[in-house]
């Protein structure tokens, strides 16, 4: 029992270590580790007269460039993981990701439209079309107030197909510069992040995550099936709708600022299930904490591993997928019980 408590303590404390450590990592020579130590020395020394170095560039890099990016990476990772976990619970399916209802293709189409013709800001357009795609999937699947999971997944696949086709049309009609922007956007990246990106996304992301956190015990009941939920006094259609809306809100906002980060919302909930079991009361918080921390670590690699930026979506795929496959082969991932 004590060991288990210590284990959870370490997991929950992980961001407290990784968040400040990420601030020390970056490609800039003006904000290298030794310069930051010097800066800390300057801050903690009451006698500032011995310092002749101008720290303004370092401050700009730390607080205008790195800090918003670090915070956004954490929020996006947390949002994708919590949303993935919530949707896997209500769909009672381990293959579900936050993109299952066409959100990613809708958002990609929205972003592409904006990048090609600039009728709306890119983030807003991606957000709105992401929501629209999920709304269409939901409306098509809803039949006489009944919500069949199979219908929902099928309509999600069809809506994904439609928006993918529309995206291809935009790509076909646009010029090489805009096409490249669209492709880079769909790869998922955080390199354009500033305080503005964070300001535009943190409210919907945190709202969605908070609603899912409040729903954590209901998710356990919904995961048992509609009849069991009704027996327990929970309206399954309403419960699923709340989870769906909250997950869509958080994911749409995350995708709008970071592009499509593939597989992440599918893989992290499985990791968490392996670590903490299927109980969503524990899993929702842990998904946010670990989802945020892992994406932050991946983004640290993305911005420092080479002289140029590597899209974060590519790294999540390259690192996450093999580890996930290995763990899947080695252990029970929590759905066989």
């Amino acid at each position, binding site marked *: 029992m004590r060991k288990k408590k210590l284990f959870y303590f370490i997991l929950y404390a992980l961001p407290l270590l990784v968040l400040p450590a990420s601030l020390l990592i970056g490609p800039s020579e003006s904000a290298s580790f030794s310069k930051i130590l010097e800066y800390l020395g300057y801050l903690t020394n009451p006698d500032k007269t011995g310092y002749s170095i101008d720290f303004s560039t370092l401050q700009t890099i730390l607080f205008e460039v*790195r800090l918003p990016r670090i915070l956004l990476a954490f929020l996006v990772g947390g949002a994708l993981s919590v949303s993935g976990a919530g949707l896997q619970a209500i769909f009672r399916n381990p293959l579900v990701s936050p993109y299952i209802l066409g959100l990613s293709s809708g958002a990609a189409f929205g972003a592409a439209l904006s990048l090609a013709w*600039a009728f709306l800001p890119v983030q807003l357009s991606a957000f709105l079309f992401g929501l629209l795609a999920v709304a269409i999937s939901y409306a098509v699947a809803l039949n006489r107030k009944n919500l069949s999971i199979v219908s929902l997944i099928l309509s999600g696949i069809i809506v994904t197909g439609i928006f993918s086709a529309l995206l291809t049309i935009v790509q076909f009609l646009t010029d*090489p510069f805009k096409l490249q922007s669209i492709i880079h956007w769909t790869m998922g990246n955080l*390199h354009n992040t500033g305080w503005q990106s964070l300001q535009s996304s943190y409210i919907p992301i945190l709202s969605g995550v908070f609603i899912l956190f409040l729903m954590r015990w209901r998710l356990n009941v919904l995961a048992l099936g509609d009849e069991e939920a009704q027996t327990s006094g929970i309206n399954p259609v309403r419960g699923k709708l709340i989870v769906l809306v909250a997950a869509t809100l958080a994911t749409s906002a995350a995708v709008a600022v970071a592009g499509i980060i593939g597989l992440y919302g599918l893989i992290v909930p499985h990791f968490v299930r392996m670590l903490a079991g299927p109980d969503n009361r524990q899993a929702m918080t842990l998904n946010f904490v670990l989802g945020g921390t892992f994406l932050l670590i991946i983004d640290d690699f993305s911005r420092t591993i080479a002289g140029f930026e590597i899209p974060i979506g590519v790294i999540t795929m390259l690192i996450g997928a093999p580890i996930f496959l290995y763990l899947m082969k080695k252990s029970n991932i929590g759905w066989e019980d």
Partner: protein
Amino acid sequence: MVALGSCSTNSNESRGESKAGIMVTDFGGRQLNFDKPAERIVCLIESALSGFFMLGAEGSIVGVSSNVYDDNIFQYYAGLDDRIKNKTLPAPGNWDFVSIENVVSLRPDLVIIWASQTESIKSIELKGIPVYAVMLKSTDDIYKEISDFGMLTGREPRADSLIRYTKAELRKIIDLQDSSLAKKQKVYFMWAQGPLETSGTNSTVNELINFAGAANACNFPDEHLIVNFERVIDWNPDVIVMWYDANKNPEDVKNFPGWSNLKAVKENSVYEFPSVFLADLWTLKFQYAVKLLAKWAYPEVFLNVDLVKERELMLQNLYGKTEGSKQ
């Protein structure tokens, strides 16, 4: 199908005029032999199309890239060709997608296409149509392209004259720098895809910056790369140059994270190239981009260079028309 000559892939023979007619080797090493100048050309590259207009060979063009009809450059081509103005010149493809059926239906005797469009090239060649593939990495490549087009259309003297004129214009800029520049300005080049998309030392952009007497802030060798905000802050460029972008202007640059303290931003040295047509880095209009950049980087040295006059002179020399006369 009208094919004026055979087409082979022998890359060992040098280009020039063979005894039987015209012999040219394209950028993919493909050797083209023609008995007479091409008369029905489908040009799927917008910048290459400009070359044919400069040569006065627009009468041989029967198909163009759909990009010619894009908003930001249509007006220029409309001023050069009534068929484009009236939108009657077919556009069977562009730099990315090509309708083989539409290309074939135009009965071309030559297709100009990017060398990277390998699948389309294969399909067009299978229909027995000769293809000239283009890949431009330097100003020498631009000279080779116009020279080859001159041969393919029977307008070598005009091609030579255009190249001589462009080299002389560049020489004028270099001569002005030689006597005056004490310190090289550091230039950060920003592509339209985003503020962090730039070009390194092995690129046409690097050549452009060097011709203007400045130094590329990006010291990576890559032709195109995405850097990050803190890297640019480290470089602290003297001048920032934006590729033409309908959605952004130099004012937006100061809003990028941490960039408001950059020297270029503080000193209002952020500039944007005019339309893609006028400052095209992949045509002989490269010279105008060099002049713009030189004046932006060294306003005092190039004080007497009147950019509006230079642009009109360039258009007159290359196309035989000024901007005003085209519209």
